[in-house]
């Protein structure tokens, strides 16, 4: 086509500058999050003393709900709620929030690596103009993985039913035959080994990929590309196994009695589409700053298609998991959705409905047309909806199992997500400054610059 700007790779290097003003703004956001968090924790600690009537009322309602549920399911569902109530401590909600956000942001960080690996594995050209953005995300693993390890090590029994004292000891009042049967896999040491080994492999492979990618900028040559393809392929293989394993470990094992063979897919789908939304927002932010002029509406169109398609993919997986459980109607499986729909005085019902609207209906309608996928404002709206929706999705996965009737949306939730989000933005911005925003010696860069759909 006529009218292409002649773009020589040598003159495209450009750097994002993380100005002190930008740093200040993020630090203010972080402080605001911490303040909200502290006030939230203070209110929680106060609320527990005066909130007994509410709790008791809720308890009765939950009891009624349980009776109705038991009638409906003709018994058989093993509820572990009464036992959880015995050692409920108001700090549990704080730990649950740390866990929720650490899992959520770990996902965004690691899927950045997954995206880049996938582009190398498929030898995609179009994405080489923007691959530096997702390539920076895994830096946050250095913060989120240690948080996961520490919370698991010190406060794991708050989050995981299978870590409660005595559940696997025969003769203990807490003994649980089902959990004891799973203890070969769900035990503290093996969990930590999986977390450290796979998390370490993620960080190791990201470092290798990042190093080669930066060396390619300096020296050029296709040998870097072939090496990067190999690293990407190795990562995809490892991530294929580890994403499922971590979905079982970090989230599914919270509801220890319950299991779903689709859960690995489901959680990965949620992580995946969130990361596309974060990539789009980052690129649009950089474009608003006057950078990345070579990322045009064709590249944005492709990213918009990814957001659109994987929103539908998430819906498919989520609904498929629900449909099979709904149809088979086995009490030990339906308890999961019953808790989220009718349980705890319908505490989680509104966010369950909101989640499907935010994650499926709105992105589906907003991003449906070609023009919307090529227009920045629609992409921004859809990206925000998807990120908010999938945060709620993770909330729905984690909170009902950990907190039950003690859950809720309050200052703790908003404070914690602000703290994590601002830390994420700070770390990623820092990492983005360390390399040129365009991989100028990427062999497919000319193809990407002429991308036209």
């Amino acid at each position, binding site marked *: *086509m006529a009218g292409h700007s002649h773009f020589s790779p040598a003159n495209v290097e450009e750097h994002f500058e993380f100005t002190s003003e930008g740093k200040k703004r993020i630090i203010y956001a972080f402080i605001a999050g911490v303040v909200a968090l502290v006030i939230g924790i203070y209110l929680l600690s106060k609320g527990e003393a005066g909130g007994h009537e509410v709790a008791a009322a809720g308890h009765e309602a939950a009891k009624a709900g349980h009776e109705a549920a038991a009638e409906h399911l003709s018994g058989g569902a093993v509820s572990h709620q009464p036992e959880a109530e015995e050692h409920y401590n108001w700090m549990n909600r704080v730990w649950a929030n740390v866990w929720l956000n650490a899992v959520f942001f770990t996902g965004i960080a690691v899927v950045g690596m997954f995206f880049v690996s996938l582009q190398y594995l498929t030898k995609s050209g179009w994405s080489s103009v923007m691959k530096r953005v997702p390539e920076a995300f895994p830096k946050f693993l250095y913060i989120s993985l240690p948080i996961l390890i520490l919370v698991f090590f010190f406060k794991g029994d708050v989050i995981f039913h299978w870590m409660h004292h005595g559940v696997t000891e025969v003769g203990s009042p807490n003994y649980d035959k089902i959990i004891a049967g799973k203890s070969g896999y769900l035990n503290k040491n093996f969990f930590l080994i999986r977390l450290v080994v796979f998390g370490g492999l993620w960080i190791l492979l990201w470092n290798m990929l990042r190093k080669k990618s930066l060396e390619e900028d300096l020296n050029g040559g296709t040998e870097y590309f072939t090496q990067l393809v190999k690293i990407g392929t190795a990562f995809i293989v490892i991530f294929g196994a580890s994403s499922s394993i971590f979905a079982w470990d970090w989230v599914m094992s919270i509801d220890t009695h319950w299991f779903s063979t689709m859960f690995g897919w489901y959680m990965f789908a949620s992580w995946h589409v969130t990361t596309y939304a974060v990539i789009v927002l980052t690129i649009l932010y950089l474009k608003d700053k006057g950078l990345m002029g070579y990322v045009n509406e064709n590249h944005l169109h492709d990213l918009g298609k990814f957001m659109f398609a994987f929103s539908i993919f998430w819906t498919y997986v989520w*609904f498929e998991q629900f449909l099979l459980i*709904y149809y088979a109607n086995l009490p030990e499986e339906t308890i999961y959705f019953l808790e989220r729909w009718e349980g705890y005085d319908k505490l989680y019902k509104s966010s369950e409905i909101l989640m499907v609207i935010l994650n499926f209906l709105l992105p589906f309608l907003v991003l449906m047309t070609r023009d919307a996928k090529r227009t920045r404002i629609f992409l921004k709206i859809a990206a925000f909806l998807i990120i908010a929706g999938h945060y709620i999705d993770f909330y729905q996965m984690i909170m009902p199992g950990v907190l039950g009737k003690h859950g809720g949306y309050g200052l703790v939730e908003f404070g914690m997500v602000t703290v994590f989000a601002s830390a994420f933005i700070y770390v990623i911005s820092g990492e983005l400054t360390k390399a040129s925003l365009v991989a100028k010696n990427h062999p497919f860069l000319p193809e990407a610059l002429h991308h036209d759909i």
Partner: protein
Amino acid sequence: MSSTTNYILGVYDDEDEVLHAVGEVKAKGIKIEDVFTPFPIHGLDVAVGHERTRLPIAAFMFGTLGMICALSLISYTMVFDWPMIIGGKDFFALPNWIPVTFEGTVLFTAFGLVTTFCISNDLWPGNPTLPLDIRTTDDKFVMAINVDKNKVSAADIKKALKDSGAIEVNVK
């Protein structure tokens, strides 16, 4: 395309040439009716200045129609006409119906789109329209210009086509 229309056809034998020729001919103020090629050429429809297809809108409407039809049929048969309990669920068991509704949506969209596409391109069975130049089904690229819709004279159009690299210029 009736026989009273006057067409001037520029025949090219290279896809890059025809793509550049479109720009050159248009630069002389000549309106191009269409370009016929044996295979799709990237960027040609933009260069000729065709409007984007409105098939996606039709797709959305067919899909919506399919969804409504599927849901109506299932709810009529399973809820109103002959209520049936399946798997202990309510009569109106919406989750059970989603897969079938999805299939109905896809089916209506696919058939509706193929039909719309064929009708809007005069491709129904028995349609007597013949290609303006049979070689566009083989290895030649033909730019068709409707003389009646152009203010430029036929001689100038022929000259413009020749200048842009056409190997032949025919009148039809």
